[in-house]
């Protein structure tokens, strides 16, 4: 090929060259390179994940040598804690058998909780405690429990273990029901007197029109505020009357983008301006209007359902498909209206008594008064 022909060929090639295509190829190569980097880093992440599991298992499995087992319940602990833990496991196993049945036993059997001595820092040094972990296999425990004092009795250890069992009881149940109960556990233990009294105070003092209707016997409103049923209409209209708005607006605020509503919200809170409260409350998006009752009330209601349903109530609760209402009705074995009546009656019975002046307090007060007065009278030394 002559030089002239070569120049022409090169010019023709330059004219027909697709620069965009080359750019595209370069870009594709860069993207492929980035994808390879993702895979490399992901491999490294998986290795790190396994190493983390390994470290955790090596740290945890070495601690508790004693295996305490009764029924579905198996707990690892140390030799010095064994007597207390064994008694506690016995009582929890009875609770599982009586309240949970085979479904709960299967859930509990999937875990090996751990009870061990530990210490926690306090302002005056370390405090000895008993720590609880719900699992010895996974990277993170599926449930958590606060440590209790190291001097705890077997009943207190049993209470802590039962708390874990209540959390296991909700595992594998569909997410809609889990979202309804909110606290992540099924109440299998009887209510403590303080819990019942707290429930009474909350229900009697919460400022909500729907709750007032519930208290006066409207069972549909009860189921509405408990989140079991939804009555027609927006939440604000269903649950709150204008006289409740100021209290409501202590818990929730309009979006910042709605400047007029925020200005009204400020006037409502600071100046007790009722029309402003109405403006601010009605500006709230429906999903931002909070439920009048806390999760505690739902727990008390679920406890009532389980008690109404008897021995197999838990079994029916977790094996029934369908809405929250369907599950609760099946578990209770009776119409929910009836359960609501029982729940309201139980709440009424839980009214806390007035604080009584204990005789010990009177004696201590008089004793200290007398002691200080006596010291003042018998003092002989000068102050200066």
């Amino acid at each position, binding site marked *: 090929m002559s030089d002239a022909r070569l120049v022409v060929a090169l010019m023709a090639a330059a004219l027909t060259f697709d620069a965009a295509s080359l750019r595209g190829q370069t*870009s594709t190569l860069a993207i492929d390179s*980035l*994808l390879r980097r993702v895979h490399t880093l992901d491999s490294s992440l998986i290795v790190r994940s396994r190493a*983390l599991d390994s470290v*955790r298992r090596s740290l945890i499995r070495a601690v508790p040598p004693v295996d305490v087992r009764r029924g579905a319940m198996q707990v690892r602990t140390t030799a010095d804690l064994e007597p207390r833990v064994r008694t506690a496991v016995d009582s929890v196993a009875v609770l599982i058998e009586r309240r949970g049945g085979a479904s709960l036993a299967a859930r509990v059997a999937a875990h090996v909780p751990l009870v061990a001595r530990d210490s926690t820092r306090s302002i005056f040094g370390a405090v000895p405690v008993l720590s609880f972990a719900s699992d010895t296999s996974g990277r993170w425990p599926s449930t958590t429990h606060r440590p209790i004092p190291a001097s705890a009795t077997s009943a207190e250890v049993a209470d802590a273990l039962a708390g874990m069992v209540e959390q296991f009881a909700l595992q594998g149940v569909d997410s809609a029901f889990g979202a309804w109960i909110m606290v992540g556990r099924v109440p299998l233990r009887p209510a403590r007197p303080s819990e019942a009294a707290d429930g009474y105070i909350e229900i009697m003092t919460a400022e909500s029109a729907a709750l007032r209707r519930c208290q006066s016997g409207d069972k549909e409103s009860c189921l509405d505020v408990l989140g079991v049923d939804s009555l027609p209409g927006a939440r604000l209209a269903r649950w709150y009357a204008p006289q409740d708005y100021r209290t409501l607006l202590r818990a929730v605020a*309009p979006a*910042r983008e709605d400047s007029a509503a925020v200005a009204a919200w400020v006037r409502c809170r600071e100046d007790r301006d009722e029309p402003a409260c109405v403006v601010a409350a009605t500006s709230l998006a429906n999903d931002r209007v909070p439920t009048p009752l806390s999760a505690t009330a739902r727990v008390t209601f679920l406890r009532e359902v389980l008690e109404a349903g008897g021995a197999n109530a838990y079994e029916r609760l977790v094996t029934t498909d369908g809405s929250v209402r369907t599950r609760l009705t099946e578990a209770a074995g009776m119409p929910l209206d009836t359960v609501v009546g029982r729940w309201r009656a139980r709440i009424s019975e839980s009214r806390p008594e007035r604080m009584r002046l204990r005789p010990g307090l009177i004696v201590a007060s008089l004793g200290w008064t007398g002691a200080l007065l006596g010291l003042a*009278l018998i003092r002989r030394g*000068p102050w200066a």
Partner: protein
Amino acid sequence: MGMTMMRWSAAVIAGCAVVAVALLPFPPNAALWWAGAAPAPLVAEMARFRDAAQATEQAVRAYRAAQGLERWSVGRRESDTSSIRIDDRVPGNVADAVRQVANEQWTALGASASGLNAQIFVYVDSTTIPRAAVVTGLRPLDPRRFVDVVFALPEATDGAHCVTLVRLRGVSPAHVEALRRQSLVGVCGFFAAFGMPGRGVRAWLAGTGYRTARRSDWHVARAPAVDAAGAYGLGDAGGRCLTSQPGACVEALGAADAAARADSRTLRSYDWVIDGTFLPTASALGASRGALGEIEPELLLSAVRELGADRFGNFWRSAESPAAAFESAFGTSLDSWTHAWVVRTYGGAADRPTIRMRDVVWLALALPLLVAMAARRRERLLSERLLGARA
């Protein structure tokens, strides 16, 4: 040896000193949570795991950004000045709905918004990145979402366009609905309304990760922070800005050393892609959370709203430093305006407690009286008033 006032005081002071020596200083690493501290080997392994997870997450974002940029550049004409471009592979009915959503947000930027320097690009990509190994319980590498919206600054595109890359992960009504809840203009809204920033402002914004310009919905009136605790989210420099220390607000905005921060030579194109959903370590541009708390992304949109779009345009396009450009555009200093804005938003700082003169007077009168009473012989007083009656 009788107990005198001096001895009693000395004993109390000595006791307090012993307690202080025994307890102070309090341990610096006091547990903040009731759960016990993890053992050292576990802490070290967790740190390595966290680093690996963050590196992987950043790599995934870089990969997705590069993919989006490639989709945008393919099939784009040089003369394209459209404000909204929908990829050809988006089905017609979905494209119409998406265009409507994008149009609403674009129109809200004002009449001056154009496609000369900004564009919204929507495409469909439902691919997933397979994990390197099949392990039970591993989550997908891409976070679960219906739609991903990121903002590619001009440095990542063609040097002249800020492009909102909208990745629809599907074409169902739920995907379109998710789009309605996203800002599709973000930082690109400023490029659409005011063009390319001047050299000084651009250096400042690049050096601070564009964190003061991440929102551009200036058509919406904003109320002060409704959470009284919001001021606690201010950084050190933000706190000094709130308490009106001179120059603190400019320092908090990172405008004092903008030129020094603006070294972008080490950044790759996908580092200039801002993902608004990742706050802590959003991009290589810099930490997206600054000293002015959660409202910082609203600073420049507040300036547009309060000071006027025309004058803001002069500031935006200025080649001067941010402080000088602000002063020449608005006639007020960046420091004082930012201070006023922070005070309006969070509320002013409370006055320091002071010593009141009336308290000093009362104490001056009362203390000698108390000392005199304490110095009297208690024995005589008691015997005269109480025990004397028996005698």
